[in-house]
């Protein structure tokens, strides 16, 4: 398919990008990896007059350590996230989830920032970001602000990023030594999640001492399974305790119904997959 025509700029600094966005007004749009954005243009479901490509801004790319946080530039590709040593050591859950995104080609272009800004309820990276209590760094003309993940995802495809603002980085606390598992359920390997569960747990001599669980596609935004988290903490690790705790997984969710899954089935999957994810994370 052929998109409608648009102007294109490729700034080299965040400031230039913000300026272009402000100058461009309503019809200016950011492009990161283009893996969601370009299909939208090609299907003519969006026709921005100006496309601002963030691909030329080196400061937006890469993973670094900053005290007790790991900072991931918004333009860091999925592929880089899956290969990064710092993330593997301290924030394994995001790397695990990223491995399940699409295919090699898409992972080489798509970015963590793009995926989070896109905020597709079936996207795989929002739930781990929420579970991990990350902070999202947003830059506008008035400078930088940091938004906790719990406040960042507002609705379907809607985030706290305001007009004229750009997501520049994601700051994850360290979860060194925690087990992690992203349990994704879909019909074919390279498809979006019908439901998925992001779980990371800390186990000390057979007892679960801490747990973070996020759910994908169980509402318009990612959902934190807090009831399960608190049911798990302090319990000794066993299949029974985990499965019992997982029964609370669908609490507070509002999943949709479509041809792949009714809402009741999604709720059921959330319970089953939460059990499996926690067991695998702890194991």
């Amino acid at each position, binding site marked *: 398919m*052929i998109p409608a025509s648009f102007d294109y700029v490729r700034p080299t600094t965040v400031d230039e990008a913000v300026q272009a966005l402000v100058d461009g007004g309503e019809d200016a749009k950011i492009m990161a990896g283009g893996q969601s954005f370009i299909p939208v243009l090609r299907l003519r*479901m969006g026709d921005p007059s100006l496309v601002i490509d963030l691909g030329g801004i080196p400061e937006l790319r890469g993973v670094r350590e900053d005290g007790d946080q790991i900072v991931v530039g918004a333009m860091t590709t999925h592929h880089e996230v899956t290969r990064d040593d710092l993330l593997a050591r301290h924030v394994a859950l995001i790397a695990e989830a990223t491995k399940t995104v699409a295919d090699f080609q898409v992972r080489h272009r798509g970015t963590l920032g793009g995926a989070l800004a*896109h905020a597709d309820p079936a996207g795989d990276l929002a739930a781990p970001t929420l579970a991990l209590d990350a902070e999202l760094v947003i830059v506008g003309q008035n400078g930088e602000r940091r938004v906790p993940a719990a406040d960042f995802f507002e609705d379907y495809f809607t985030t706290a990023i305001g007009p004229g603002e750009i997501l520049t980085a994601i700051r994850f606390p360290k979860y060194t030594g925690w087990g992690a598992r992203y349990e994704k359920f879909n019909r*074919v390997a390279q498809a*979006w999640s019908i439901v998925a569960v992001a779980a990371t747990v800390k186990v000390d001599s057979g007892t679960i001492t801490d747990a973070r669980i996020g759910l994908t596609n169980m509402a318009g935004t990612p959902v934190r399974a807090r009831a399960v988290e608190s049911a798990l903490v302090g319990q000794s690790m066993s299949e029974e305790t985990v499965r019992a705790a997982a029964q609370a997984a669908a609490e507070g969710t509002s999943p*949709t119904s479509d041809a792949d899954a*009714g809402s009741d089935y999604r709720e059921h999957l959330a319970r089953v997959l939460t059990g499996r994810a926690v067991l695998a994370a702890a194991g």
Partner: protein
Amino acid sequence: MTTTDNPPVQEIGRDRRRKEDRRLITGRTRWTDNQAITGLLHISIVRSPFAHAEIKGIDTSAAKQVPGVVGVYTAADIGADAVQLPCAWPITKDMKSPQRPALAGSRVNFAGEGVAVVVARSAAIAKDAAELVEVDYDELEPVLDMEAALADGATLVHPELGTNENAQWVFDSGEAGSGGSAAEAIAAAEKADDQVVVRRRFRQQRLVPVFMEPRSTVVDPTGEQLTMWSATQVPHILKTMLALTLGLPEHKLRVIAPDVGGGFGGKIAVAPEEVVTLLVAQKLGKPVKWTETRSESLLTAHHGRDQIQDLAVAVTKDGQIKALDVKLLADMGAYLGLVGPGVPILGAFMFNAIYKIPAYRFDCRNVFTTKTLTDAYRGAGRPEATFGIERMMDEVAVELGMEPMELRKKNWISHEEFPFTTVSTLTYDTGNYEAATEQAMTMFDYDGLRREQQQRRQRGDVKQLGIGISTFTEMCGLAPSRVLGSLDYGAGGWETSSIRMLPTGKVECVVGTSGHGQGHETAFSQIVADKLGVGFDDVEILHGDTQSSYRGLDTYGSRSLAVGGIAIVKAAEKVVEKARPIAAHMLEASEDDLEFTAGKFSVKGTDKGVGIADVALAVFAAHDMPEGVEPDIDAHATFDPENFSYPHGTHLCAVEVDTETGFVQLYKYVCVDDVGTVINPLIVEGQVHGGLAQGIAQALFEEAAYDESGTLLSGTLVDYTLPSAADLISFDTANTTTPSTTNPLGVKGVGEAGTIASTPAVVNAVLDAVRQYGVSDIDMPTTPYRVWTAINSAKGTSGRGDEADVASPGAGLGSTASDISKGDTQGGHL
């Protein structure tokens, strides 16, 4: 004179790598869309978003203003509404056939039907302008359900036909004299103490062929001959049909199918877009191109399958089948495609499959709906039939408490009984179901897997094992012209080849088949190499251009080798016969003393000889020809088979069903196919693998679903679920070889076998895993949701009706168009 010192190795049976792959894989070939002609214009077709609507008016004024637009035409402007696109298979004398225009004039009958066309200097401009064409529609009631469409008072797709029924086609073995009356046998079985009647309803969902290369057409009207390039499987049929349909002089037309990227039946068509492109090119006197987008392809290229099957089997309690009754409803969609109405009828000959069934009745009603039309899709009619009977065999086995393979053995034709004339009047020439089955059972470790299944059941494992069987045969190698004639098909089934001997000893072999990814150039070169004793690399296969290959019936129905390959053999034999007197003259010997082996004529009992290349050169010079012999050893042959070919095989599938989630994972897949003589084992294996992927995909993944307003929900590849290699497993394939006796190579078709056989094997396996929970059927595709619902519903059946009838339409628009997508709770994902 040179002679060949090292006779070439036997090519037939060698696993040659495909000679065409270098240009295909490196992207160096020119597909239709790559044709670049000076002054080329591009079109974009404006399509109806409604399934059924009156067109009240079309405003093209804004579109015409766009710089770069050359013209914007409605149907009437180019005469597209008056066209009657051809249906070549009127299955009954009184079949109801609506006019199928190239663009809709006053009424649209499916979502996606073209209503106007924009011509511009670039494809992008054409698309921009097409968005500006304003069409005023008055919506009509859509017609979506086949049974409702046949009920009294139903809304009519085509009111002028007075009915939604296209035709009813019946075969009754009692009436035909090939068996008893199924109705009587079933009635008797109902009363008998020692018999049961098993009745089931199965659905064949709608599928989209999803060929890799989207359709594309370029028409250049500027030469003496109007030239059409098209991504088609049927350049010859297309040419003749364009002449007949549009009243064009046939000798002023040339159709070229360059390399074509797959078809699976989806490119057997005279497409409305091909005609529109031609009409626009003629109107403007300029070359014009149309290339579809993937969404256009999914929406408007013909779909496949879509049947409701009501089957009844009468069987003795010890497993002897007495009768089979088949009632079908087949969805034609809004119009009749080139062979659309005949597709379900091909199944009439295959429901009895490999079994000796004494009484058989087949009754098919073709129905019009306001959906995209259906037509041939890999297997065409035979997968539907094979699914019906092989699912039924498992159902009967369950009813009788018999091992499903034992039931099959009890009823199949044994190898001593060939040739065997079936209850549906076909004569199967050869086959050995016992041998293929035995080999498959061993490779599969059938007994071992049954034990494992039992253990998992006893342990109550979350992942339960299911085992499914499909012992299939099919009729292919379309087809004896005589049989096609008796089925009221509009053309014959012969195939043609010409062999041109070049002065340097190289060979051009022109074929009437039109390969589009199968590897014909390789397999056919192997045949020519053996028959003429020339090198594999010294043969060029020419196809797909009606100027070089003026005679042919193209590629479908696994016919290219079984029919076209034999024409090549016949042409090669003629070359040798024409060369013989010249060789004798050159050797100063008598023709009777010559023998031809490995490319060389030699005088029996001597070492004197000349190669076929020497003769080719001598003919080129023509300085010294024998008296009365023309200086030409080229030859042309046409082969019309006497019978179909009947590949068969045994497919065994094991699946793991996750009983907590409903997810089905393939566990083991074994198939032993008998496709007769194998020309190239590598290509045969590739055809089987691809066929399996498509057949398995019908069982587990694919479905073209419509919503209640007649909108296609699976309109992108995000919503139409295709498997990739990651979703399949490594298949264990093997062959038994029972050469066909109806052709000199002993070959049978292999193009469709995997697709035909595999679907019921997979579904039988899924059901075998979950029957223990009271599940008796699950509609295809057996998605995790359907499997889970079936396990959990008290009644034990599932499928349509117990799920929300929505796919994920629209798309995730993100911040690009969040105003539209916000609150759209069914957003798809991009």
